C-alpha cells in the first residue's frame, strides 16, 4: 500500500520519437550534450554559440520559443518549426532550447525519453560546481547505507500489548476504544491535557508503555531516584487504559514535569507546543541516562526520538555559481508558517471569508510548499561561497531527508509586528487532509525538482520508510492569544472523539475538518492500520463473557 515500485510512469514515446531513436540512437543526444549550458540554478539550456544570438532559420526572429533540430541542428521558432519538418524529411524531433525538453514537431507536443534525461542530468552533475559531491547528490552520505531501523522492538511488542489490552478490557464499561478517558483540568492545564491525549494515542509510544518497556520497579532499583517522569508517564498510560472511564487527574505527572522543567513550572497560560517539546526533551534525557547513550544525531534510541525524530536537510545555494552546501539537522516536529500569501485584502482585516469564495484558503500542502520552497536570502545575509571564495547572495531550501514514524506538524499562529511591538494570533482557517503524502517534500523529490524532474535514478531514492501518513490527532485552539482553550480530537478506529479536558464526546469528522488546527499528528500508514485493529473493543455480552465480541463492534478500521 505504501511502497511505490517506480517513482515515475515511464511515458511511452510517440511514434516519431521511437522512429528517431531507431535510426539515430544516441548520436543526436550526445552531440547536443556539448551544447548544453547549466545555469547556477540548475537549469539546462541549449546554447551552441556563446556569443551569437540564436535565430530562426526561416524568419530570422529570436523571440518566442526556439527549437533546435536533433538531426541537423537547424534552429526554428515555434511558428516555423513545422516548415522545417516539411522541408527536411524525417527531421521530426527537436529540442526546446530554453528548457532542454524534447519536442515532437508532428505531434506538436513535449515528449519524454529517459535516455535523453540521463544525458541532461549527467551534464548537470558534471558542470555544477562541487560536482557529484554536493548539489544534493548523496552518493555515499549518511543515510543511504544505514537502513532505517523501522520501529525495531516496537512492532514486536504489539503481541504483548494486545494481550495487556484484552486483559484490561474486562473492566471496560462500554464498547468504546480503550484509552479513551477524560483528563481533569488542574487549573489552566488544558495545554497539557491536549498534548497528553495526543501522546497517549501515538502508536509507537502507546505500544512502548503498554508493553511495559519502562518498568517502574526496575527503574527505581537502577537509578535510585525518587522521581522519574517516565514512570509517571507509564502510570498515566496504565490509568488511561485501565478501563476506568471517570476523568483522570494527571497531578503526579504535573508535579514530576515541574520538577524537571522548573522554568516552565507556573500556574498560568502556556503553549501546547512548548509543552510537547519539553516532554520529549525530558523523556530523551531520562532514557539517555538509562541507555548510557548521548547521541543527538537523530539516531537516538530513546522512545521520544524513535517515534518523532526526523532529519531535515538545508541546502544553501550560491546564486552566482550554483555551488550548494548541505547541512543536516534532526528535528522532532516541523513548525509551519501559514501560507498567507493567498489571502485577499479582506482577509487581512480578519473579516470572515464568504462561504462561496473558493479562493483564498490556506492549505497544509501550501504551508509545506512554503516550508520546502527555495527562499532567496536578503542581501544583508550574504554567505561565503566555497567556490567563488567570497560573500555571495544565496538561496536556501529546506527538505526532509528522513521522515519520522510520527509526524508532528505545528502551525505557527502568532504574528509579531515589529512596528507596533505587538503580537497577535492568526485565526486563519487551515485546510488539512486526513491522508497525507509527504513524498513531494522529501529531499529526493526536492533535488529531483531542482534538476528539472528528469527521469533519472538518483542514488538514494530507494528508502524503505513510508511517506504516506494518516492523521490520528488534532490539537485545536480557540480564543485569543493570551487567553484561549485547547481541545484534542482523536481518531480511533475511524471514529473521531473530542477530548475537552474531562469531557469526551463523539464528533463527526466534519467538525474536525472545520476546526482551527494548531498541532497535527500523523502516523505512517502501516502503523496506523495496525494500531486501529489492536484496540478492539469488547462488548460485554449477555452471557458476561468479555471475550466474545458482537458483530459491529469488532470490525477493523477501514
Amino acid at each position, binding site marked *: 500500500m505504501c511502497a511505490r515500485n517506480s517513482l515515475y*510512469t515511464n511515458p511511452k514515446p510517440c511514434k516519431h520519437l521511437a522512429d528517431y531513436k531507431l535510426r539515430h540512437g544516441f548520436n543526436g543526444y550526445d552531440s547536443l550534450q556539448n551544447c548544453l549550458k547549466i545555469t547556477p540554478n540548475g537549469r539546462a539550456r541549449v546554447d551552441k554559440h556563446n556569443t551569437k544570438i540564436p535565430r530562426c532559420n526561416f524568419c530570422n526572429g529570436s*523571440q*518566442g520559443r526556439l527549437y533546435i533540430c536533433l538531426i541537423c541542428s537547424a534552429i526554428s521558432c515555434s511558428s516555423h518549426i513545422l516548415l522545417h519538418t516539411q522541408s527536411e524529411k524525417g527531421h521530426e524531433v527537436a529540442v*526546446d532550447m*530554453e*528548457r532542454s*525538453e524534447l519536442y515532437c514537431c508532428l505531434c506538436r*507536443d*513535449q515528449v*519524454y525519453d529517459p535516455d535523453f534525461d540521463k544525458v541532461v542530468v549527467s551534464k548537470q552533475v558534471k558542470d555544477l560546481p562541487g560536482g557529484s559531491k554536493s548539489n544534493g547528490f548523496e552518493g555515499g552520505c549518511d543515510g543511504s547505507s544505514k537502513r532505517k531501523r523501522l520501529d525495531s522492538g516496537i512492532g514486536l511488542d504489539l503481541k504483548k500489548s494486545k494481550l495487556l489490552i484484552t486483559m484490561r478490557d474486562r473492566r471496560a*464499561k462500554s464498547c468504546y476504544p480503550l484509552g479513551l478517558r477524560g483528563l*481533569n*483540568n*488542574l*487549573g*489552566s492545564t488544558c*495545554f497539557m491535557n491536549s498534548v497528553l491525549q495526543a501522546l497517549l494515542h501515538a502508536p509507537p509510544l502507546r505500544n512502548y508503555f503498554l508493553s511495559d518497556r519502562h518498568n517502574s520497579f526496575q527503574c527505581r532499583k537502577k537509578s535510585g531516584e525518587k522521581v522519574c517522569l517516565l514512570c509517571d508517564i507509564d502510570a498515566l498510560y496504565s490509568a488511561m487504559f485501565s478501563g476506568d472511564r*471517570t*476523568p483522570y*487527574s494527571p497531578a503526579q505527572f*504535573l*508535579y514530576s514535569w515541574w520538577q524537571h522543567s522548573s*522554568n516552565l513550572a*507556573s*500556574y*498560568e497560560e*502556556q*503553549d*501546547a*507546543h*512548548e509543552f510537547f517539546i519539553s516532554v520529549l*526533551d525530558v523523556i530523551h534525557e531520562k532514557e539517555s541516562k538509562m541507555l548510557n547513550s548521548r547521541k543527538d544525531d537523530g539516531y537516538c534510541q530513546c522512545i521520544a526520538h524513535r517515534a518523532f525524530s526526523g532529519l531535515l536537510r538545508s541546502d544553501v545555494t550560491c546564486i552566482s555559481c550554483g555551488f550548494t552546501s548541505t547541512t543536516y539537522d*534532526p*528535528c522532532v516536529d516541523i513548525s509551519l*508558517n501559514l501560507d*498567507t500569501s493567498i489571502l485577499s485584502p479582506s482577509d487581512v482585516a*480578519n473579516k470572515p471569508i464568504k462561504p462561496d469564495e473558493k479562493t483564498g*484558503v490556506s*492549505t497544509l500542502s501550501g504551508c509545506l510548499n512554503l516550508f520546502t520552497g527555495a527562499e532567496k536570502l536578503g542581501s544583508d545575509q550574504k554567505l561565503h561561497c566555497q567556490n567563488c571564495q567570497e560573500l555571495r547572495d544565496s538561496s*536556501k531550501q529546506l527538505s526532509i531527508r528522513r521522515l519520522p514514524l510520527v509526524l508532528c506538524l505545528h502551525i505557527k499562529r*502568532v504574528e*509579531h509586528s515589529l512596528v507596533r511591538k505587538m503580537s497577535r*494570533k492568526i485565526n486563519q482557517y487551515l*485546510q488539512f*487532509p486526513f491522508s497525507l*503524502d509527504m513524498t513531494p517534500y522529501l529531499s529526493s523529490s526536492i533535488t529531483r525538482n531542482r534538476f*528539472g*524532474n528528469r527521469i533519472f535514478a538518483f542514488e538514494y531514492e530507494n528508502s524503505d520508510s513510508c511517506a504516506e501518513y494518516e492523521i490520528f490527532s488534532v490539537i485545536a485552539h480557540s480564543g*485569543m*492569544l*493570551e*487567553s*484561549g482553550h485547547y481541545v484534542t480530537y482523536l481518531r480511533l478506529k475511524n471514529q473521531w*472523539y473530542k477530548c475537552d479536558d*474531562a*469531557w469526551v*464526546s463523539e464528533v463527526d*469528522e*466534519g467538525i474536525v475538518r*472545520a476546526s482551527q488546527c494548531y498541532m497535527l499528528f500523523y502516523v505512517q500508514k502501516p502503523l496506523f492500520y495496525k494500531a486501529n485493529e489492536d484496540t478492539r473493543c469488547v462488548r460485554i455480552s449477555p452471557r458476561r463473557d468479555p471475550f466474545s465480541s458482537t458483530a459491529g463492534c469488532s470490525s477493523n478500521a477501514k
Partner: protein
Amino acid sequence: MFVPNEDNTQLSSHFFGDLLDSVIVDVASESHRLAKLGLDRNLEEEEEEMSLSAQARARVSDPSNNGETNGKHVVDIFGQTYPSVASKIFECMNCGRSIAAGRFAPHLETCMGTGRKARLKVTRSTTSAQNRYSRGSPVLTYSLSTNRLSNGTPGVAGEYSNDTYKEP
C-alpha cells in the same frame, strides 16, 4: 534622453508580452512534464480532501445546523457529567494537604515555591530555542521564543480588541 512616446510604449508592452509568454510556456512545460511522468498523481485525492473540508466548514457555519453542542455542561459519551472546576479531591504529593483537582496547579505552584513571573521571561526563551532550526520568514516577523498560544481563563483584554474570534 529617453522620452516615452508611442513607439517606446509599444516596444515596452511588446517586451512585456514576450516575457509573459516565456514565463507561461515555462510553467506549462514544467506542468506537462509533471503530469506525463505521473509526479502529480495525488491531485485527485487532494481535491477530494479540499472539497470535504469546504463542505465541513459550510455545515459548521450554517446557523440552522445544531452543530457541536458546548460540551461543558452536557453528558459525555460515558454517560457522565462534571462540574466546570474538577472537584475530585486528592492529596498534594508535596505537602500532603487535600486539594480539589481543579485547583491543584495554582496550589502546587505556591507549594513548590516556584515563582510565577520571576524567572520565566528569561529562561523560557533559552530552552525553547533548543532543538530548533531557524528559518527567516519574509512574511511573518517571527520570534522563536514567543510563538506560543496560551490557554487560560478569558478576561485579559487583548491588544487587538476588534480581533474577535469567529467560528470558521
